[in-house]
């Protein structure tokens, strides 16, 4: 792995539960992962595994009960609001739902200039940067005056990516960014992610439930199950010949778009279940 920029050590995240005397819910039970500069670490798991919580904890959107999150050597587990603001230059996010990740009543121009205004850039310089961002994600310049509802899901995700890139971050947390998109759109948006990484050297913490997507975009992979990392390693190893039985089940459960290969995989899976 190249130089580490993000490190998570023994991270525990608990959420209080409603109803008195109920113990808090442990979303993450001591997770340790690391992301190298310019690389993609894929986090794969099913619903309720805690994968999104991991992303949110890195972003400061979920409380850290114990353990540490370290960015470029600095402990960012419990940052004040103001310190978080400074971190916005370095760590950014792209969310899953293209329909609610952009404020529906703000124009694209307003949405994209918000991070720039935060960093003290405004006026002509901000406008120039916004146009440049739209260019980089393949959207036309006149998008600035339009509202999100005029765009398709894939187009909105591109705009969300543009927003993430505005402050030239070194790490982007991608929380299921292509899960809500059609197949053909998925491919294009994933290619955009990869192109941006190759050009700018940004690192990704890429979260998804889809093993094939993770395989396509990650250099290294961590598999999350019930709040724990059950397997971690290089992408080729984890997504082709995994060690842990849960990862094996994940692999065998994804159907293959080829009847013969799928029949084979199905037989393999059922054999594993029976054993």
């Amino acid at each position, binding site marked *: 792995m190249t130089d580490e920029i993000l490190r998570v050590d023994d991270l525990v995240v608990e959420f209080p539960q409603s109803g008195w005397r109920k113990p808090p819910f442990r979303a993450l039970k001591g997770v340790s992962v690391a992301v190298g500069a310019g690389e993609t670490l894929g986090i794969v798991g099913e*619903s309720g595994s805690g994968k999104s919580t991991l992303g949110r904890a890195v972003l400061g959107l979920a409380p850290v009960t114990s353990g540490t999150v370290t960015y470029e050597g600095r402990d960012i587990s419990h940052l004040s609001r103001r310190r978080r603001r400074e971190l916005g230059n370095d760590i950014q996010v792209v969310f899953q739902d293209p329909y*609610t990740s952009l404020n529906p*009543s703000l124009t694209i121009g307003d949405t994209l200039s918000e991070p720039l205004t935060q960093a003290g850039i405004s006026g002509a310089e901000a406008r120039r940067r916004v146009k440049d961002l739209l260019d980089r994600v393949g959207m036309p310049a006149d998008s600035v*005056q339009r509202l999100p509802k005029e765009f398709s899901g894939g187009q909105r995700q591109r705009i969300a990516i543009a927003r993430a890139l505005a402050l030239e971050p070194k790490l982007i947390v991608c929380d299921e960014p292509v899960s809500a998109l059609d*197949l053909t759109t998925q491919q294009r948006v994933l290619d955009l992610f990869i192109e941006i990484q190759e050009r700018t050297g940004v690192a990704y913490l890429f979260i998804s439930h889809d093993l094939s997507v993770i395989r396509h975009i990650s250099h290294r992979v961590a598999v999350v199950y019930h709040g724990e990392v059950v397997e971690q390693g290089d992408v080729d190893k984890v997504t082709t010949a995994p060690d842990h039985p849960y990862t094996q089940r994940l692999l065998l459960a994804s159907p293959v778009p080829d009847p013969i290969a799928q029949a084979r995989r199905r037989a393999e899976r059922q054999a594993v279940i029976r054993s």
Partner: protein
Amino acid sequence: MSSEFTAVLPIGKPARKRGSVVVRALRNPSGLVAGVVIAIVFAVAVLADVIAPYGAQESDLSRLFEHGGDGHLLGTDGAGRDVLSLLIYGARSSLIGAAIAVGVSMLVGIPTGLIAGFYGRWFDQIGTWISSAILALPGIVVLLAFRASVSTSMWAAMLVFGVLLAPSFFTLVRAAVRSVRNELYVDAARVTGVSDARIISRHVLTIVRAPIVIQAAMVAALGLMIQAGLEFLGMGDRETASWGQSLNEGFQNIYRADHLILWPGLALGITIAAFALFANALRDALDAADAPRTPPAPPEASSVDPSVVPATTGDLVSIRGLRIAYGSGDDASEVVHGIDLDLDAGKVVGLVGESGSGKTQTALAVLGLLPDGGRITAGTISIDGRTTTLTQRISMLGRDIGYIPQEPMSNLDPAFTIGNQLVEPLRRHLGIGRREAEARALALLERVGIPEPERLMRSYPHQISGGMAQRVLIAGAVACEPRLLIADEPTTALDVTIQAEILDLLRDLQQERGMGLLIVTHNFGVVADICDEVYVMQMGVLVEHQAAGDLFAEPRHEYTRALLGASLEGGPSRRQREKEQLR
């Protein structure tokens, strides 16, 4: 929503921003009339001193209770005052009272709602409790008690009324803030480090602006009503002219002065109605602004490849030339442009496409369950070789045709137990008693792999998991042994390991009972796993139809090829591709 394959960039003028809700409300005829009336009342109130023919307290004791005419257009009251002038000055006091009520309720309700919604915790709890306590009491009782104990001033009463109505703004703003607080775009702003104050002013207030204006109009109407009511009860200020007091006087002299009831009553009714109508027009304008734009017109349907049209008719289901459209007249838009499809008994047919392809519409059309506004405009659907009408297909639901929906949790009635929802159709279709139906339901649940069927029968939908719910829905679909099963993306909403189990279950059930299965999906892996034949749809048009094995081996249409190519399953990993590039 079309797939990226054909997504068009928006063209033409940009959509208008939200700020023009008021303007749009005025375009609506009732909104315009209401707006004009309100403006007139305002003008009358402001210009009262100029336009009133007499002073408000100017009384001529020689002319009491006269009807209209001879210097007094609308007559005089019991103190010889001119009714028209009373009306004009009455407008002023009415509007002032309403303004106080609206102002105070907004001043108290909006900031508290913002704080309670945004910061939550104890402020929220206390605020909500106080709010519901205030709403719990009848306003007039509180106002009268206030008058009795503290102050007889009408303005003070309107102030209290404003406080009494503040909860309406509180709940409104709090709800808006809470919904926005959890939106992803607020999270994105937080990650950028945007301060709370900015998040509130930028993201929250823009959403809540219009509902606040609507509520203000309603509160104004209520304020006018209650003020007139208090005055009618005799609580008004004798020195000030007001509509309510005139009404009171009219009532007390009902036999000789009904004109005193008529004119103030009209003025009051019209003004209150104007505010209410304006609020309504605003609400309609807001709803229209939120509506999604009409999708772009689909491309011209190219000529259909003859290999796509089935040679023989399917013996279970046969669809010919099906067209489905939404809306009516000039607004009608067709979403399915004439497709043909066959399903033989005991076979599995996959209907594949991306969003906007029309695949779900087709399935719903066969079931007879198209959503509101949708209808079949052309084509036939035959079952067992006979053309069917909508009514006939609906009568087959649950008996001969079964349906498995996509989203497990939202497809079960939350108010009834699982058992209740399984038993009812069984009793209706099979004519059996409750005990026998329950036994059958238990057997069904066991068959679909539920570990503790008795406990599940007594559970409510919110108590079970998504995977369990989908099994329950499958059980419900096959309960009366239908010959045709239609499944709309039955595995899409589930985790991948559960998906595989559900597919196994579906396959087993289909083979066991020899059902014809039409499965709608966007996932070619699912198709490879279970389908005998495949139909591919794009933008409402059928583009390919082949046996499953043939389709994967040699896809004919470029769209099918693009879809198959877009699948990442079994493809090279990131590292592998990077190594390739270096060579």
